[in-house]
């Protein structure tokens, strides 16, 4: 009888110790996670602010902004969709990767416009829709967002440049690829008046 009691006591002691360890482990994990989140938040706060005409290296793309405006027509001469207005951002864009690519859709994102889709890009040289950008051949391009006409526009358009980095071997297929890096730069462009985008 006494032996059984002792065994029971040691068993409860063990269970108690396990619970204690599990609790401590959980607390440790939570605090590491919290610390990491705080660290990331602090890192995210120090996104460099760039000026107009400053080249930004976003890994796959190099971009330098020229300015933004409200357009009367699309850069290729087409009409703006009824009930919409068009915000145009002109920039120099260069493909830094080793392959022709048209995957610049998520490179820039306005932060102070309500839910904008991916912009449509136009090649200034041809006044036509931009397709592939060839490596080492920077081009003057314009990105266009069409927003509903009743949206109140800010005086200053804030843009975020999203970076990408190259992995020679990815974790899934062991194949080369580009992966998101997060915001690499931010820029504020004054959005003044109606300007028709008629550049040569």
């Amino acid at each position, binding site marked *: 009888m006494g032996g059984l009691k002792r065994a029971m006591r040691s068993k409860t002691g063990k269970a108690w110790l396990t619970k204690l360890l599990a609790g401590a482990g959980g607390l440790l994990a939570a605090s590491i996670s919290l610390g990491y989140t705080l660290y990331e938040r602090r890192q995210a706060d120090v996104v460099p602010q760039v000026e107009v005409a400053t080249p930004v290296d976003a890994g796959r793309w190099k971009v330098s902004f020229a300015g933004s405006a409200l357009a009367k027509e699309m850069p290729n001469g087409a009409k703006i969709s009824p009930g919409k207005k068009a915000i145009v951002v002109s920039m120099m864009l260069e493909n830094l990767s080793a392959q022709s690519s048209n995957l610049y859709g998520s490179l820039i994102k306005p932060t102070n416009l309500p839910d904008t889709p991916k912009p449509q890009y136009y090649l200034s040289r041809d006044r036509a829709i931009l*397709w*592939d950008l*060839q*490596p*080492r051949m920077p081009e003057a391009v314009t990105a266009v967002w069409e927003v509903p006409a009743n949206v109140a526009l800010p005086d200053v358009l804030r843009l975020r440049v999203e970076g990408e980095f190259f992995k020679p071997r990815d974790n899934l297929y062991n194949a080369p690829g580009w992966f998101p890096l997060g915001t690499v730069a931010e820029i504020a462009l004054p959005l003044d008046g109606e300007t028709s985008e008629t550049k040569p």
Partner: protein
Amino acid sequence: MIPAVLGAAALLAALQATTPPYATLTGPISTVGRQSDTVSSDTFSVKINRVLKAKSIAYKQFGRAVDLQSSGVWVAVSAELQAFQKTVPVRAATLIGSSGRMYRQSRRAGDAPNVLSTKTVQPGLPTTGLLVFELPEDELRNMKLVLSEQYDPQLKDEISVSLETIETAPQARLEIRKDGV
């Protein structure tokens, strides 16, 4: 016991290190050749006729004159394609420049007449046409032309042809007509 375990571990590590990646296992079936030859894969073949370079290209689209400038050079490759067993649409063409960068055929010139990417190659009907590329001038040495049905082919034929370097300076303007260049 310990030598056996170590031996097995070494063997497994060697096997793992030499396993070809998925991309290689499911990659293209390559055929390599030179510009002077007709290069044939199992499904289609290519014969390069001419390689021209120009500062600008011009053509007519719906009766409207189109003139395309470039910060680099336009390269127009005139080629003859043949399909063997079944219809082969050769949609993907890439020029690998001297730096190793890959320049896909230009979509800017995609509406030009006689462009091969808009044609479909039927068996028994040799099809000639143009492939138009835009690339920086210093990429023009030791170029390689890579053709396949689609970009990044998987377990499908891909023909790569090494092109001879053109020593002459690019012409100022290249007119693309319905019957070629």
